[in-house]
């Protein structure tokens, strides 16, 4: 059986020292080991950006796709092999900027995949432009007079779009992140874990300290029931999205794969591709 070290490889991430993404990498590795997964049973599909490199930093199958398209790529992979554990990952620009459209539709479709967003509220790899989750007023390279746009609220948006599993983590709390990732992988359906993963180089506002001072941990909130949609929305709104923990889970919704009419139970990579002659003959009759 695989252990934690089997999910590690020898690659040194090209992240800056102190980057929040290191915690996410570690949490994924620990969660997979804790779930008794084997590396070959898992595929991580990532987008472009600093965080998008993560598919190469965990010893599983990995696909580093184009900018903003980790989700459709991951969904295609899941359709080809429904027995794989598929994790999609990327940053806030990748997922909520260029790839936002896919996010909403992935939520709607509800395939059994886990989406981890490393949200640092900045574009790091392109060296410090504002991102869709940058706060109003934030002054960076592309907002010399302060950001005049309003920040996108990932958790509120996900909930409004009808997500079946929603969690938020913080790179400083790796233990919580590990348990959230485990729960998300075990959830049958689409799950989002938005992780506050500070950029120590370009975001001087949303720092580790800033998050520590501002986030509310719902996992420790007495009486909080993550199956209560209204309570989830209220908490998000009350704390302007700055909550961590399991925010919402709907266990009654079937994943997309279960609802595909007559869908093969095996991986499509190894099914017999020869069209049965009776199916072909019946198909030809329609054109007689």
């Amino acid at each position, binding site marked *: 059986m*695989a252990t934690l070290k*089997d999910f590690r*490889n020898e*690659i040194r991430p090209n992240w800056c020292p102190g980057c929040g993404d290191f915690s996410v990498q570690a949490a994924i590795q620990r969660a997979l080991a804790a779930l008794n997964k*084997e*590396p*070959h*049973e898992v*595929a991580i*599909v990532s987008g472009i950006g600093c965080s998008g*490199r993560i*598919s*190469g930093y965990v*010893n*599983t*199958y*990995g*696909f*580093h*796709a*184009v900018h903003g*398209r980790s*989700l*459709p*790529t*991951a*969904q*295609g*992979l*899941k*359709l*080809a*092999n429904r*027995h*794989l554990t598929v994790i999609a990952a990327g940053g806030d620009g990748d997922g909520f900027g260029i790839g936002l*459209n*896919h996010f*909403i*539709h992935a939520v709607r*479709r509800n395939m059994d995949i886990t989406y981890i967003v490393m949200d640092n509220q900045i574009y790091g790899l392109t060296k410090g432009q504002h991102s869709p989750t940058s706060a109003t007023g934030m002054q960076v390279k592309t907002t010399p007079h302060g950001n005049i746009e309003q920040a996108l609220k990932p958790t509120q948006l996900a909930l409004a779009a009808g997500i079946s599993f929603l969690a938020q983590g913080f790179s400083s709390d790796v233990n919580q992140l590990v348990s959230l990732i485990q729960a998300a992988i075990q959830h049958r359906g689409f799950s989002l874990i938005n992780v506050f993963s500070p950029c120590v180089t370009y975001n001087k506002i949303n720092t580790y300290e800033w998050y520590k001072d501002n986030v509310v941990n719902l996992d420790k909130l007495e009486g909080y029931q993550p199956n209560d949609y209204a309570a989830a929305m209220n908490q998000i709104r009350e704390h302007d999205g700055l909550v961590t923990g399991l925010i919402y889970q709907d266990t009654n919704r079937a994943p997309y794969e279960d609802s*595909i*009419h*007559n*869908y*093969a139970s095996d*991986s*499509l*990579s*190894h*099914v017999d*591709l*020869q*069209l049965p*002659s009776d*199916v*072909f003959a019946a*198909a*030809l009759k329609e*054109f*007689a």
Partner: protein
Amino acid sequence: MLSELSWKVGGQQGEGVESTGETFAIALNRQGYFVYSFRHFSSRIKGGHSNDKVRVSLKPYRAIASRTNILLAFDQETIDLNAKELCDGGILIADEKFKPTAPNHVQLFSIPLTQLAEESGSAIMKNMVSLGASCYLLGLPLQVFEEVIEERFRRKGDKVVSQNMEALARGAAAMEQAGGAAVKLSLAKADGTRRLFMMGNDALGLGALAAGARVMAAYPITPASDVMEYLIKKMPTVGGVVVQTEDEIAAMTMTIGASYGGARAFTCTSGPGLSLMMEAIGLSGMTETPTVIIDTQRGGPSTGLPTKQEQSDFLAALFGTHGEIPKIVLTPATPEECFTAMADAFNLAETYQCPVIVMTDLQLSLSKQSTEPLSLDSIRIDRGAVTASSDLKEVPITTQFDRYKVTDSGVSPRVFPGTPGGLHHVTGVEHSENGRPNEGTANRQAMMEKRMRKLDGVELDESISRHGSADAKVVILGIGSNYGAIEEALDILQEEGIAASHVHLHKLLPFPVRALNEAFQNAEEILVVENNATGQIRHLLGFFGVKTAGTIRSYLKYDGSPILPLEIANDIKGRMHAWQH
């Protein structure tokens, strides 16, 4: 006795024009005639002029005729727009209801189509009345239509079937009463051979199914949507899945993900979708993930002419992605070829691990036509180099599989996720043999050469076909649905004593330079026929260095309508005339 004729029905979109044309075409196809139909329609749901032109013949034609023998008009607009193509003395059957007026060169039969339909039970059966009138003119027994009417209306009950049959009979009787006997265009009897009746899109869908496609991701677009709609019905019979995605970018990347996962996956679109897919097509090339993309061309650029014929995506398909990747482009000409092209596409995609674009055009995709039998025996499935899990048994967990191993052929074995011992990374970033990002200059050069080597010097079998006299000085080069018009132009020219040959491009990339050099050996005059404004195929002859001593000219058409046989023949004749002086 006529050996061929051309019939057209026209009216407002949504008032049964298409079903009238289709009933007529299917019935005659079943008699053993060769039938070729072309639908003129607009990008709207109801209203606007539409028509369906059907050619019926004793020998196969793959093109619409230049003229029309019989025109059925449900409104005056149909007459105004189409009467000019009626031959001298051509027959116009129009609904008396709108008090039709017609030009002098045609014979107008004003028949109370709507009234007779109402007498049979409902005004909507005016199309059956008009079919009855057509049937009489062609000297065919009404039974020819009975079987099709029965099939079409069986679900609605016996009464509806008999009412439609009655409407058919009333139409025939009315045509006789109106003096139709004097203008009968008796059609020679066909031999009763049963052929399929399908459009290119039908054949692409069936071809994909036969080729082992199990995942299709696509976004609706004219004229491609039929392929997705067909597979949505059929995929459950083989345990596959069709996803209607949020856009074409998702369609293409989902296709890549599914193919990486080991399924045969493809997408289908038209020009605007192809533009959106370009970055991801580059990802397919860079990550050597096999993909199949169908592009059913329509009028561009931008939204262009969504429901009209054009062939203007060739350069986009060949050169559209940024950077450089190996790519294959197939250009089938007929439904028969669309069927086999899908298996070819998947086999080539998996053999060379690159994107394969299958290009049709609106005329090929949507023209329903008599189609020769399709056989499953013509389909073989070759998945290319895939490493089985049995070969990887002893590999330690932490060892990476060299997915991009540099080989002489440039092709490196794939391994599907889920396979123990096959762990590797895939990225659109330049990478090492094990798939890890690597921007080193030596690695870059080695990897670029490895990818490009896969198709270096390759010319695919049957990239071109040659027809007509091989030593003819005049060569007509065509692509896609122009096939039929060029074949017919050869006949027209031959009747006038002009020998010409037809070379057709069936595979556009790798560009078949050697085959074309040989085909053009004796040519003095090469006419490149294409449905675009800039002569894209002609430019490619130069770009790829095709050698010929002949003069290369273009016949271009970009008004949204298909190229007609006579137009090509006249162009050649004009040129011959110029030579003689």
